[in-house]
């Protein structure tokens, strides 16, 4: 008996929809096994991880709060991934965006101009683009692999953040904590849902989703990116510039991540902290893939991943699970999903070996 994959004539729509759901189920099963082995109560862990986020309005609103940066960044990254440009340094672009946005309120802590907030958002988005643009420059000019360059730039960004918070930008009245001054009201994003911390950055993320959808489905520019990702030689043959695809992919990814960083400091944090970087940039990679790199799929996967984030916070308290459990779950989820993707273009065949 031989089990093998046979290529399908055309992609299976059913498999496309089933794959993420099945991956989710498998990841849950695998986590339960793992948690049990570690001596944690799996029932409690799952309850915290998957149900608690829905049980109170507050918890649910926190899910929406987390969803904004994840969705925004993932939309930016997915465009690049479809073009085979792998920006895995969104974490660094987010940090640099947050830093740039913080400059104004740090320098003008009493500022009350109506232009402060828009300026911060612009600076954040611009800085994120510039940071990603370094990778684009190195890739197009020197052929340097963008995966490694964007990742290195993330590590650098994290150190720059540390330097600023431990040095020049440290709040002099902050009991020596590595954080900046609290921002004035003029530097804070308006709240979207009264009584919660959900701010208008969720709207940015949803608008970004609509724009990404238009770009990838209806614009010729998006089509060019897709061709570059699926068949680089076909793109060259048709005259679609590879350099342009690299620049567009990285700049859009950097813009989204930088804006998300700005929205974090101008939103729930209200100051520049080390915790501005809690792995959104890496989780967004998973969100992008899990959503099938499809703008609307990403909206769903961003929501699911936010649930897990909030659930993980809960599980830390109620099920004594370290926050690392969330990473494990995310890693498992992506592993299963990638395996599941195979069924979109392949079917399984069982061949009984012919006897000689």
């Amino acid at each position, binding site marked *: 008996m031989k089990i093998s994959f046979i290529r399908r004539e055309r992609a299976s729509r059913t498999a496309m929809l089933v794959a993420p759901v099945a991956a989710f189920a498998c990841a849950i099963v695998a986590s339960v096994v793992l948690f049990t082995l570690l001596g944690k109560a799996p029932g409690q862990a799952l309850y915290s991880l998957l149900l608690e986020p829905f049980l109170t309005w507050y918890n649910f609103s926190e899910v929406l709060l987390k969803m904004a940066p994840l969705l925004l960044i993932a939309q930016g990254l997915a465009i690049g991934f479809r073009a085979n440009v792998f920006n895995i340094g969104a974490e660094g672009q987010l940090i640099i965006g947050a830093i740039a946005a913080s400059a104004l309120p740090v320098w003008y802590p009493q500022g009350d101009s109506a232009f402060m907030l828009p300026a911060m958002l612009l600076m954040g988005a611009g800085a994120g683009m510039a940071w990603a643009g370094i990778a684009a420059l190195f890739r197009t000019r020197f052929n340097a692999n963008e995966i490694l360059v964007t990742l290195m730039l993330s590590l650098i960004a994290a150190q720059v953040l540390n330097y600023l918070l431990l040095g020049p930008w440290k709040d002099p009245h902050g009991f020596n904590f590595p954080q900046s001054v609290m921002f004035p009201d003029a530097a804070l994003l308006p709240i979207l849902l009264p009584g919660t911390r959900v701010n208008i950055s969720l709207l940015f993320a949803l608008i970004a989703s609509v724009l990404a959808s238009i770009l990838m489905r209806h614009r010729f520019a998006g089509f060019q990116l897709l*061709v570059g990702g699926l068949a680089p030689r076909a793109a060259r043959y048709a005259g679609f510039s590879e350099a342009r695809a690299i620049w567009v992919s990285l700049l859009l990814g950097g813009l989204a991540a930088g804006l998300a960083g700005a929205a974090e400091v101008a939103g729930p944090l209200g100051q520049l902290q080390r915790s501005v970087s809690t792995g959104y940039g890496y989780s967004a990679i998973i969100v992008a893939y899990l959503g099938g790199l499809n703008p609307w799929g990403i909206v769903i996967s961003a929501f699911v991943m936010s649930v897990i984030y909030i659930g993980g916070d809960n599980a830390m308290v109620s099920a004594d699970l370290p926050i690392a459990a969330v990473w494990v779950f995310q890693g498992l989820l992506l592993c299963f999903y990638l395996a599941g993707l195979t069924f979109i273009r392949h079917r399984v065949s069982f061949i009984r070996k012919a006897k000689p």
Partner: protein
Amino acid sequence: MTALLSLQSVSKRYGAVQANAGINLVVDPGSIHAILGENGAGKSTLMKLIYGVESPDAGVILWKGQPVNLSSPAEARALGIGMVFQHFSLFETLTVVQNIALIVPGRKTDLARRIRTLGDEFGLNVDPEAMVHALSVGERQRVEIIRCLLLNPELLILDEPTSVLPPQSVARLFETLRALQARGVAILFISHKLEEIKELCDTATILRGGQVTGRVDPRGHSAKDLATLMIGRAMPPPLPATVQAVGEVRLELSGLDFVNDDPFGVSLSDISLRVHSGEIVGIAGISGNGQQELAALISGEVVQPGDMIRMLGHAVGAVGVAQRRKMGFAFVPEERLGRGAVPEMSLADNALLTAHGAGLVQNGFIRRTPERAYTAACIARYDVRTPGPEAEAGALSGGNLQKFIMGREMMLEPKLLLVSQPTWGVDIGAATDIRQRLVAMRNAGAAILVISEELEELFQICDRLHVLHKGHLSPCLPTHATTVEEVGTYMIGAGKSPEVAA
């Protein structure tokens, strides 16, 4: 006499394609046995089954009367079966002797000595220490053959061995094969070239659509009979040769030099040619002599500033693909999947790939209705067999996809068309169709440059020929005034120097 090899009702299926169905084949010891069939008839699959690369779904393979179950090429080699692959199974970054050491046991110095001895004996000389990427296609074939011979095979399989050789070298290969036959080695010779088979082989098994349609002695049959067995009907008649007045120059290369920074590629030097409106100019030569580089320079996929390339009245050295296309240039590349078409995309999206300028895009938005209409028209006019514009390009057969790509480019009504290997891997019906359309385009006034390995094809459709050898282009040879032999001398680089010719 027991047959050396015999196959009984062997079948193999890949997905929806039944590549081999109930094949019966008997190869006698010491014979040169042809497997004749056109592209897609299932010849290569059959050889992979015999060499153990693939396992049959059904049927029995007998070696010297004993049933064998070959699960790997190593087992086939241990029995005494060797195979020379059409696209070679050599590794460019390894030396000749390293490539050989992969499957032939022995010390390196020992192997190198044996490679030289065998080379002298059979006229297969090659430097054992050379890197394979530095070898010509013909030399690579010698390495493949030597690698087989070092294992003392009783059966040697050669898959389309003459497709990579100039006419003169074919004769040399045949001498080598006859010398092997004289030593008792049986040979399975796979080809679709009728004359070669008549000259070399004592038996021919003919395949069509994955089935055996005949077993004959080719020496006793005319090429016409063999062709009928091969394609199931009479060969299509050759195209009528018409000479017509040519118009203005639409492509001019003058002294084009190109230094390739790809160490595995070919550099071009001093290439000069002209293509006029209303003519087809052919570039003959074995692949790997600079064809890809030349095509990429003309298409703009590789840009080299300067005025050595003039297209439709403009120097286009520094101009990219998109702008050349806007000027009225179109191109059909030799690789269909992954270059000429995106396999995972629908035919409609593949039409968009190069026909976006034909009203399929407005203000940067894709217009789906015209996109579909263009694709449907292409499918209908160029006889592409497919369920419709939504079918994925990767699901089409080679011939159908080639017709689609040809159609897509021709419907743009280009003033200058470059076609590379128009009928590679295409069945005879589709190939004839494609050639007829090229001639029709020429008659309507287009300038066409065809790069092809198939001399027969070039002689059929071209008004003038050049030969590309090691990055050098021969002088222009009017098709009606030249011969296969003359073209052949240029293909091995032995042609007259341009000064003498002029």
